[in-house]
């Protein structure tokens, strides 16, 4: 399955600096270097409204605005509604996955995850 082009602009949203760094490093290994970071949904939404991004990877549990609210805000925004969103979270219950899918995430990864899993999910999203 083809991967998205390496020049796509990716926004990584997580309140944990180590997690942002891990995701960024894995993306780098997969050939993606155009990456921006945000610490929570509120900060991410402000960036998304100001700049153009091709893909969002977000955590669920964050202060100020969580990942689920961010996804809902993206899907309710005329300009952003078609933006692909991948949720990377420790929330592993079936109802969590259902809730996220209902809110409009394109795919879902449970932490901890391997680079292969991230690659596979990105391929699925951009196929």
């Amino acid at each position, binding site marked *: 399955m083809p991967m998205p082009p390496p020049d796509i602009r990716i926004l990584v949203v*997580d309140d*944990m*600096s*180590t*997690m942002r*760094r*891990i995701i960024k*490093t*894995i993306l780098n*290994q997969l050939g993606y270097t155009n990456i921006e970071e945000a610490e929570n949904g509120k900060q991410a939404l402000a960036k998304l409204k100001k700049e153009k991004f091709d893909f969002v990877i977000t955590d669920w*549990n964050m202060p100020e605005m969580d990942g689920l609210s961010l996804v809902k805000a993206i899907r309710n925004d005329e300009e952003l509604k078609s933006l692909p969103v991948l949720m990377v979270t*420790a929330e592993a219950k079936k109802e969590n996955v259902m809730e996220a899918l209902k809110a409009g995430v394109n795919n879902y990864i449970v*932490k*901890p*995850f*391997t*680079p292969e899993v991230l690659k596979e999910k990105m391929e699925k999203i951009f196929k």
Partner: protein
Amino acid sequence: MKELEEIIKELLENVKELEGVIENIKKPVTESSQLLPETAKNIEDVMVFLEQTSHAIMNLLEKINENSNKIGEDVDFLLSLNPVPKVRERLESIKTRNQENINILLELYTHMSFHDLAGQQLKTVLDVLQRIKQTLLDVIVSQVVAGKEVNREQMEGIKGKVSELLSQDRINQEDVDKLLEEFGL
């Protein structure tokens, strides 16, 4: 008349007993309300330490990864010089093992997400502590206010002050007594 005296005596004994019970509860509750902020502070310190150490480990892993990539480039260069078969064989072996090491490094790197998972659990513990702290303070205040006449305004004022105290790092009986004093209780 004698019967009434007996009833009053019994009532007084019951009240005295109840006072003793309250006095016994008061001490551990107050001690606990002091311990909770300390525990919360310890957990916050652990979270900071975890984050700092995780970044330090990731810095080292990145450095090793950088070195491994450089080794890979050098091996590729040597292979491009068409070495004799025996040397080529060794270089190919170095290249394979080096790539294995790079893969292991990336795997190690992803395991660093334990920090995020542990951090989320610790945050849950902090939330629970916060709730316990609030309940304990409510218990202390209700104990001291019990039996005293408190009007609606005073109760509202106390609630406001309680919230103020809860936002502070340390809460102890002294804080509660001070607050009650402010309301003439």
